[in-house]
């Protein structure tokens, strides 16, 4: 058996990487925690880039007849903003939390396929960089994040070809990651961790991975068809040859609507972890939470055409999808009420994670209600493709997911980095964010109902839209200020190097807090035996039989950590670092550039992929001593 410090070499060829620390170890790591951190950092960088694009949009729209951007530049900026925030920020940021936390919450040492995990990350990162190379190679995608045909197939610039190829690459990353994480949850649980003892975050993770597994192949086909239409003159979406552009809409939204839940369910999981901890109560209606999450997953596949009410599908289809859309509000409402019931009568502590969690629930409710108005078909005719829709999806995705992410940063920062973010700065950032967010997106409801069309690059003064646009722009800069405050908080925390007062700073409930901060590479010295939901809580507290109040459990039941972690962990069998995931990933963008420029590049990229996979296949997952 290998020990934790791995020193093996591959029996032939390249020397196998062995270092678990240092700069280069990040390129070969298969540790789910390091991969989680890399996902998080990359996604945050893309968040900043996407945010700067948003500021450009808002600056352009701050005045009537804005001249900062021309129409062509504006098309590229808003398209890249959408692609970046969805595919390069919210999805990978969710993957960051899943990667880091799922094994810890399940009591596992790593994910089911550690090298595949590294592969997913590298493919995502390279896919993102591929997309961002497009502005330097003839123009960024410019057809909106949903790339409607035939605009996307006939646009003369190279941008939408980059769109198809880039999203195919990031799709591979998500699909590989989804299979990996789903199997981890199904098959890597600690003894006693039955399905209904899993934290809700893990459950939401499971639902999201299944959504990805079944939704991604559909968009993959759509993107291939788009690519073939653009690159090799096929007629999938070409009405002049009998093709039907509506097919693209169906394929896109059959993926795109489950995608909406792929974006929001991780946030629901995060909120479900944070609220019970700071209400010091178990989550109200745990099983209802789980089943409503599963229900959202299933119904999420049956509502896609509500994005297409104005496409002319006819009254029967519109009614059916209007009804199913109204139905999906029910399990979502169940979740909202359960969070409120968890808060009710709780011993509330308004820490920054809690503020962000409550903010996320509140903002999501506003977005959810405007969503219900979309289910009403005649009302949707009026709103479709206006700023009302922009307001709606920013309230659910920014108000829901992004608020939850900031809560999660504050909540799990001590776990990951053994430093606590400043509560004061966290709360200041929260209030600026809350005000800025509502100033930005609240007025968009009014703008939309006043007839401001989505994606128009400028508007004349005579439309009377100026005032609310100025408010929205002001709000956007407040959001930027809040994100800046968060970044200052992070920097300050890491410069001060103040050690954690406690390894369980929030008095938490779930298994990840049983490990030291940060967790050692092997996570758990001894795999815990799980007896109940909120296992860690029940190890810390028991109910006093006379008074019914909680009292600390007997000594010895609370977690104990060895003082000297370096001695521990010998004899634990861990997967070894590997070059092959990175090598196999590098081939994919090479193939994609080849599709744009030359078959020779395609062949070269395919060769790299092949060599990578072969090296991977013959390399044992754990190096021999």
């Amino acid at each position: 058996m290998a020990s934790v410090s791995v020193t093996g070499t591959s029996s032939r060829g390249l020397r196998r990487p062995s270092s678990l620390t240092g700069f280069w170890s990040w390129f070969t790591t298969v540790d789910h925690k390091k991969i989680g951190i890399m996902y998080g950092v990359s996604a945050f960088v893309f968040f900043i880039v996407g945010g700067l694009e948003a500021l450009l949009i808002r600056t352009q729209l701050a005045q009537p007849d804005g001249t900062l951007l021309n129409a062509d530049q504006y098309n590229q900026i808003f398209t890249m903003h959408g692609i970046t925030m969805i595919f390069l920020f919210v999805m990978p940021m969710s993957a960051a939390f899943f990667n880091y936390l799922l094994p810890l919450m399940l009591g596992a040492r790593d994910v089911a396929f550690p090298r595949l995990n590294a592969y997913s990350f590298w493919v995502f990162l390279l896919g993102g960089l591929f997309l961002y190379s497009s502005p330097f190679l003839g123009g960024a995608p410019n057809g909106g994040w949903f790339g409607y045909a035939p605009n996307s197939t006939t646009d003369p610039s190279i941008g939408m070809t980059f769109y198809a190829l880039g999203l195919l690459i990031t799709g591979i990353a998500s699909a590989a990651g989804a299979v990996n994480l789903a199997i981890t949850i199904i098959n890597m649980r600690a003894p006693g961790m039955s399905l209904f003892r899993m934290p809700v975050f893990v459950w939401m993770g499971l639902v999201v991975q299944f959504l990805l597994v079944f939704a991604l192949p559909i968009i993959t086909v759509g993107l291939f068809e788009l690519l073939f239409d653009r690159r090799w003159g096929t007629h999938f979406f070409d009405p002049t040859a009998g093709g039907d552009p509506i097919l693209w809409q169906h394929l896109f939204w059959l993926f795109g609507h489950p995608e909406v839940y792929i974006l929001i369910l991780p946030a629901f999981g995060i909120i479900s972890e944070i609220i019970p901890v700071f209400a010091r109560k178990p989550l109200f209606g745990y099983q209802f939470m789980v089943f409503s999450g599963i229900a959202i997953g299933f119904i999420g596949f049956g509502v896609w055409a509500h994005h297409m009410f104005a496409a002319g599908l006819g009254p029967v289809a519109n009614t059916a999808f209007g009804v199913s859309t109204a139905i999906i509000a029910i399990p979502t409402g169940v979740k909202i009420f359960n969070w409120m019931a968890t808060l009710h009568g709780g011993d509330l502590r308004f820490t920054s994670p809690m503020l962000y969690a409550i903010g996320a629930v509140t903002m999501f409710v506003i977005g959810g209600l405007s969503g219900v108005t979309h289910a009403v078909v005649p009302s949707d005719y009026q709103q479709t493709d206006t700023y009302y829709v922009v307001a709606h999806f920013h309230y659910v995705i920014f108000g829901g997911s992004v608020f939850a992410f900031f809560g999660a940063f504050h909540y799990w920062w001590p776990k990951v980095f053994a430093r606590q973010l400043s509560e004061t700065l966290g709360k200041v950032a929260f209030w600026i964010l809350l005000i800025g967010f509502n100033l930005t997106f609240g007025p968009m409801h009014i703008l939309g109902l006043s007839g401001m069309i989505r994606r128009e690059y400028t508007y004349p003064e005579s439309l009377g839209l100026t005032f609310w646009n100025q408010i929205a722009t002001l709000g956007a800069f407040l959001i930027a200020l809040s994100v800046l405050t968060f970044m200052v908080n992070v920097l300050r925390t890491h410069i001060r190097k103040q050690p954690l007062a406690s390894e369980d700073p929030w008095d938490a409930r779930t298994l990840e807090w049983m490990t030291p901060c940060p967790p050692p590479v092997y996570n758990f010295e001894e795999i815990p035996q799980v007896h109940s939901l909120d296992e860690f809580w029940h190890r810390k507290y028991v109910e006093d039989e006379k008074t019914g109040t909680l009292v600390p459990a007997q000594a010895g039941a609370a977690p104990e950590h060895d003082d000297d972690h370096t001695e521990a962990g010998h004899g634990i069998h861990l997967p070894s670092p590997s070059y092959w995931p990175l090598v196999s990933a590098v081939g994919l963008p090479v193939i994609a550039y080849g599709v744009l420029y030359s078959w020779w590049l395609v062949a070269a990229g395919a060769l790299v992929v092949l060599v990578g996979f072969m090296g991977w296949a013959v390399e044992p997952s754990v190096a021999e001593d």
Partner: protein
Amino acid sequence: MAMAIEKPHAGEGGEHETTTGLPNTKLAMWLFLASECLLFGALISTYVLYRGASTVGPYPADVFDIPYTSVSSFVLLASSLTMVLALTAAQKRDVPRMRLWLLATALLGLTFVGGQVYEFTAFYHEGLALSTNLFGTTFYVLTGFHGVHVTVGIFMLLSLVGLSGADRLPDDAGFPVEMVGLYWHFVDIVWIIIFTVVYLIPTGPTPAN
């Protein structure tokens, strides 16, 4: 038949007991195949949606040679039999037979892909290119996607033979052979659907030209 696998070597990080008792790799393969069902589902749906929608010829009835494709379909289906024989041999640790049947499977797959290349070439010479009409578009992309899947399967089969030759397979090679077999059978089953939908069900009257 494949219940005899106890210690999968192909599963990464699966050195301790798994929760379900099933190897991670096997569950992952099933989940991957489920995902593939939707990939082919969307492609086949596209084909079906555009059946008879071409505005210019050649139409399916002009180019299809059903007896020829039936033979190559039979060859592909026969490869499922040799795949099973390879798995049985692997589970009995009969390495020479396992290699023989794996090679036979790869060869049958290669024959099928070769037949497809010939068929594409013939159709092309009859005037059906990728961009000629909707039939060409949907036909080449759907069957081409399937062909790529078969080709990937052939690579995997040949890799197994190569690894076995280099003595890099575990003593009990049943597990990796079973995993490749799952993929291979899936690709065969998809072909049954594609063959039926594309070749056997008539498109109906084509516009007179």
